[in-house]
């Protein structure tokens, strides 16, 4: 069974601060996805990283896939209250089971 570990599990920061969330595994993944889930909603896909060492940017969010394709990070610059939510990393998928990390619950305080 492929497992994904996320850290930290909880993060409370002030608006304008930077933060990084980590997703680690002992297994190699062909790709990893990051999702954000707001209360009362289903997870929404943010990005897919496929190539080892790949870096993708989505406005103030920067995603990186580790060279060995076992880990990924999400960095948010100048966090805003609208960034508040549960951030989930996931791997697998396609015709195989998707494995989700436990998630990082982020609160950005105005």
């Amino acid at each position, binding site marked *: 069974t492929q497992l994904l570990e996320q850290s930290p599990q909880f993060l409370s920061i002030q608006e304008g601060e930077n933060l990084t969330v980590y997703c680690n595994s002992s297994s190699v993944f*062909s790709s990893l996805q990051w999702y954000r889930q707001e209360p009362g909603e289903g997870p929404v*896909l943010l990005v897919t990283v496929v190539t080892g060492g790949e870096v993708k940017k989505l406005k103030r969010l920067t995603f990186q896939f580790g060279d060995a394709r076992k880990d990924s990070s999400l960095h948010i610059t100048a966090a805003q209250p609208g960034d508040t939510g549960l951030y989930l990393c996931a791997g697998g998928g396609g015709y195989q089971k998707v494995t989700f*990390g436990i998630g990082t619950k982020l609160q950005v305080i105005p």
Partner: protein
Amino acid sequence: SAVISQKPSRDICQRGTSLTIQCQVDSQVTMMFWYRQQPGQSLTLIATANQGSEATYESGFVIDKFPISRPNLTFSTLTVSNMSPEDSSIYLCSVGNGGPEAFFGQGTRLTVV
């Protein structure tokens, strides 16, 4: 991406009863899945809904408790049977077309009293 509608969005049910959750997609999809998300937790896969055949259940989930139907490529139902308070959770429908990404409905928040 596909638009996924789940009904009901929330419900409060008496223990011992059953609730059927519907998932409707606006386009044909290859894969449909049902997840459970307990309060403050991540997602746990219940089963893969297979069109025209029995669903494939994950360890710890059984058909008698969570019967699933998938009559076509755009619709599936999940029933939570003989409910107890431990079944209180968010139930999520997810779809995919063979790629790594999963797309979710808004979820059904179930409270069993």
